[in-house]
């Protein structure tokens, strides 16, 4: 279909015409699929999962290579200035030991108080442990590829965390790999609170690797630099008391925070069952928009 008129040949003219029709059909089919995947994202779960199964293991293998190369460089870097580092770490360890004894005492007291109140304790179980092997590095959305999938019991809607903090939740699950909606995505809204004083806040991704935190009650800005934001467990999707982010910058009525679990450097990602199983059944309960 390069030129307006290919000559006098009827055959060539028809060929041109039909290829024009085919392209227009392609546009229409694309628009219909796009509308469907925006309105009813769950319809394409299987085909998206299959694509993840193709790329996930490849990314995992390549990730091993790049992680080894990176480890060589950072490993060499650790020897630089080792004596000073050692002294600093020893001081830190002493301080940590004292804090740990305090924490253990508080933990015991807490358990006794809970026993008195007869609170039902949610046991925290692990569905699967995987590695972050890729990300949506060419899109305004913030997704990551996780190296475990439905074969390991991973289902859509499950929260993902690392030992450092919350990473996000599963939105596509293939058999061998799955896709995670990171906390730094703009569509991911996490009910949270301040660790310092328990003020309820809302954490929403900013799309550039940081998180926007706002207090639920309008009024004085409750944030200080260095504040830790933890999940509150409201909504039932994310488990409570998981660290999310650290405040790095204040603005008018909220603050910008940096997620504590950096997907680029985190070694393990732990997939957990939804805190309240009912929350996963209704995607709207996570107080966020539907995600394609």
């Amino acid at each position, binding site marked *: 279909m390069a030129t307006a008129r290919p000559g006098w040949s009827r055959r060539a003219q028809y060929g041109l015409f039909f290829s024009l029709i085919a*392209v227009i059909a392609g546009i229409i089919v*694309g628009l219909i699929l*796009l509308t469907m995947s925006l309105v009813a994202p769950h319809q394409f779960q299987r085909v998206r999962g299959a694509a993840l199964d193709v790329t996930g293991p490849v990314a995992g293998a390549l990730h091993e290579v790049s992680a080894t190369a990176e480890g060589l460089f950072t490993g060499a870097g650790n020897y630089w200035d080792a004596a000073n580092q050692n002294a600093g770490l020893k001081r830190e360890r002493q301080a940590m030991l004292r804090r740990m004894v305090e924490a253990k005492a508080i933990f015991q007291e807490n358990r006794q108080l809970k026993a008195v109140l007869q609170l039902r304790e949610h046991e925290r179980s692990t569905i699967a442990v995987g590695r972050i092997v*890729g990300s949506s590095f060419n899109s305004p959305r913030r*997704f*990551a590829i996780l190296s475990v999938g439905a074969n390991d019991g991973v289902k859509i809607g499950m929260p993902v965390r690392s030992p450092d903090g919350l990473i996000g939740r599963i939105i596509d699950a293939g058999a061998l790999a799955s896709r995670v909606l990171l906390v730094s995505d*703009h569509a991911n809204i996490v009910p949270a609170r301040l660790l310092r004083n328990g003020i309820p806040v809302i954490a929403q991704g900013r*799309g550039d690797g940081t998180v926007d935190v706002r207090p639920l009650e309008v009024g004085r800005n409750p944030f200080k630099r260095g504040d830790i934001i933890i999940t509150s467990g409201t909504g039932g999707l994310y488990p409570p008391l998981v660290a999310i982010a650290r405040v790095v910058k204040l603005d008018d009525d909220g603050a910008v925070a940096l997620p504590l679990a950096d*997907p680029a450097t985190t070694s393990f990602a732990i997939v957990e069952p939804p805190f309240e199983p009912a929350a996963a059944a209704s995607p709207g309960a996570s107080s966020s928009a539907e995600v*394609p």
Partner: protein
Amino acid sequence: MVRAALTPTRRIGKAPWRYARYVPAATVIAASLLASLPIISMSGWYPDFGYLVFVGWRLLRADPWPAWWAAPLGFVNDLFTGYPLGFSIALWSATMLVLDLIDRRTMWRDYRTEWVLAGVLIAIDEWLQWRIADLVGGAPPFSQMAPPVIISVCVFPLFAWMVSRIDAWRLGR
């Protein structure tokens, strides 16, 4: 074409590769697969590789593939990049149509015209991605889209050069 015919280094017995017809589409799919590289970036500034190669081929030749192949190629790109399904199908088909219309209008072309053309297409691609992310509430402020557009436009010549090298190789030149 003309310049290639004038080069004296052409040897006898060289012919297009047997599967030369499928090479352009294969390179587009390979570029889409780059999305599964283990790059963990929190900024999203990397270019849309599949689209860059797609536009690169289409600007180099009027018929690198039958026009309707744009839809399946877009489908592959959607699957591997995690875009909402149907986005690249519609956009890539529309790109074929628009570039055909432009082919009719333009009397002549040079390297800079093609770069500007590709730049406009890339900007439209990034804007649409932002617009669709906005529809589902996942879009960052629009100002954050400037770096990926600029980066993509700047690396386009590199992709166009690679495409022209592959084209020469597949035709046995």
